[in-house]
């Protein structure tokens, strides 16, 4: 099976903020490795969930996949074509779309909704006979009333702005949509609307999704496969149901365990994971997670664990992957 988007051995270094002088001088500013050794593949029509705490590099990965940040090493392949030349990137622009974390902020503030949703068609040079009718068609696809076409972004509610972003993403019938925190800032009462809409698009139109979030409940609900990002590395990837049922990395297990449960009868005493995510400037030696890991042993502090396959389609970076204490959440028992 050919992948929709494949990433091999990706490393991304971003420059540390510099001053004017360094901009004028031909010296290179010092760079910080934000993402490292990323391997990931998204199949057509699949929803891949990317989970990680803030600062772990989720947005940087999305930006790199869309050509907004340059890789320092590694390959990016979209529909079988290496993203190296102009033509390949143009193909990616036509075949993919991004939904930003802040929907209102990603819509040009002085343009009306109708112009915004049809803009991708204009940019791609697609001939459209009637721009207004095309706008109505796109708005209808995401369940928005036609009257919205005349509004400005700041006149939309959070849920409406999200839908406008989905409509815009759909304009070119993309094969891949990258959605950064698609439910951030939405009430539970309407976040289902967006997730259902995305699920429909995946099922009916074969759109593949990369869903970036730190909301585990959303990922558990919507993703086919997931990847867990910690300090710029994927520490675990695998089918969502399996990873949630039997996390192989202690970080994954801690994340699942720290998710607050709305059911007071399942209240747990040991909710919290220790400490905070370390600074990228001081990446721990050995396993990057050892400073917070509840089961770390001596070699974790010196030897960086490489990727290992623990089951078909499951990768983990941990020396002790077989010894992870499993979540004691009874809800997970029956889904094994």
């Amino acid at each position, binding site marked *: 099976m050919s992948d929709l988007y494949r990433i091999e051995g990706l490393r991304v270094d971003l420059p540390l903020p510099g001053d004017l002088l360094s901009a004028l001088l031909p010296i290179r500013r010092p760079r910080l490795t934000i993402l490292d050794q990323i391997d990931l593949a998204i199949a057509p029509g699949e929803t891949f969930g990317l989970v990680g705490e803030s600062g772990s590099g989720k947005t940087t990965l999305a930006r790199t996949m869309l050509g907004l940040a340059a890789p320092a090493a590694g390959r990016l392949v979209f529909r079988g074509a290496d993203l190296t030349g102009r033509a390949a990137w143009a193909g990616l622009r036509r075949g993919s779309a991004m939904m930003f974390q802040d929907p209102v902020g990603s819509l040009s503030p002085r343009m009306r909704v109708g112009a915004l949703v049809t803009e991708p068609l204009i940019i791609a040079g697609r001939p459209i006979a009637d721009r207004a009718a095309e706008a109505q068609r796109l708005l209808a696809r995401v369940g928005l009333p036609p009257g919205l076409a005349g509004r400005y972004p700041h006149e939309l509610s959070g849920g409406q702005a999200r839908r406008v972003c989905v409509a815009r993403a759909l304009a070119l019938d993309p094969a891949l949509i990258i959605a950064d925190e698609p439910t951030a800032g939405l009430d*539970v*009462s309407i976040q*289902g609307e967006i*997730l259902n809409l995305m699920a429909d698009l995946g099922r009916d139109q074969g759109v593949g999704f990369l869903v970036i979030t730190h909301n*585990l409940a959303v990922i558990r609900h919507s993703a086919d496969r997931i990847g867990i990002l910690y300090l710029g590395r994927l520490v675990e990837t695998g089918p969502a149901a399996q990873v949630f049922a039997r996390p192989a990395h202690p970080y994954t297990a801690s994340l699942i365990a*720290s998710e607050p*449960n709305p059911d007071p009868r399942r209240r747990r005493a040991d*909710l919290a994971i220790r400490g905070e995510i370390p600074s990228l400037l001081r990446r721990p030696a050995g396993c990057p997670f050892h400073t917070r890991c509840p089961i770390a042993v001596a070699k974790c502090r010196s030897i960086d664990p490489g990727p290992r396959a623990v089951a078909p389609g499951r990768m983990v970076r941990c020396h002790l992957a077989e010894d992870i204490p499993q979540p004691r959440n009874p809800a997970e028992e029956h*889904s094994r």
Partner: protein
Amino acid sequence: MTAPLLDVRGLSLSYGPVRALRGVSIDARAGEIIGIVGESGCGKSTLASALIGLPAPGATVAGEVRIAGEDFLALPEARRREWRGARVAMVFQDPMTSFNPVLTLGDQLVDFQHRSPVPRAEKRARAAAILARVGLPDPDLALRRHIHELSGGMRQRAAIAAALLMRPMLLVADEPTTALDVTMEAQIIHLLRELRAEHQGAIVVITHHLGVIGELCDRVYVMYAGEVVEEGTVDEIYHSPRHPYTRALIDCDPAHIDGPAGRLPTIPGRLPDLTGTLRGCAFQPRCPRAGPRCLALAPPRVAFGPTQAAFCHEAGR
């Protein structure tokens, strides 16, 4: 049973024509953690502002907010200022709002104690002690830091420390974990749990995250369109909700559903316009169980046992 520490009766608050609170009554006993839950825009932050006696300028307030028996809202502003900190304190969603960005944490924590007669060194020691208590590593160093030098989780801990500094009877936390990652959220939940055990007062936690309610609270008030629509113990609210809104809210939460469950339920429609009076039940346009009475009559309070009650025509059926 002792008298409640916090007793809010018939609290109404309007921003001009917008009637953001409509006759809210809640209470909290010493040692209790109360949860206030509801969609955004339903008046949770407005309630918080009234609880600390700081409604937005221009807002009109009616009703009582009694803390230890005294009506806070009836006091002159000078007295209220004395009370703030000593009797009620607040933690915001964005901890930056609690601090002055140009002062060090230590200077501010000392400054917050300006009413206390003890010497400055003692105040500083108390500040360090409370930072240690909320789990800031190396509190003496933290005292010399500015708020922006701390990480998000540490900022919220510092804000909680500032709120607890004067040992308030009532701590109001408005969305204290909303801006945080899961791991930091869990740590703050733990901290609040521990503080409850030590702290003699009551804690009011405002959130739209049902997980926070489930892990932390003893009793819950569910708000909709500026009104309390259901109250009960956290177990009653989660396992036998009586108000259709409470039920819908719980059903929508993906955390409530084990595993991938196909389509997520939603609550179609949106909050009603809060200007003017609402006829009948505010939830009626979105309610799956609404009957003819819901359109015309304000819903009655229907009690289910000593702790649970719902404001709904259909709740008893």
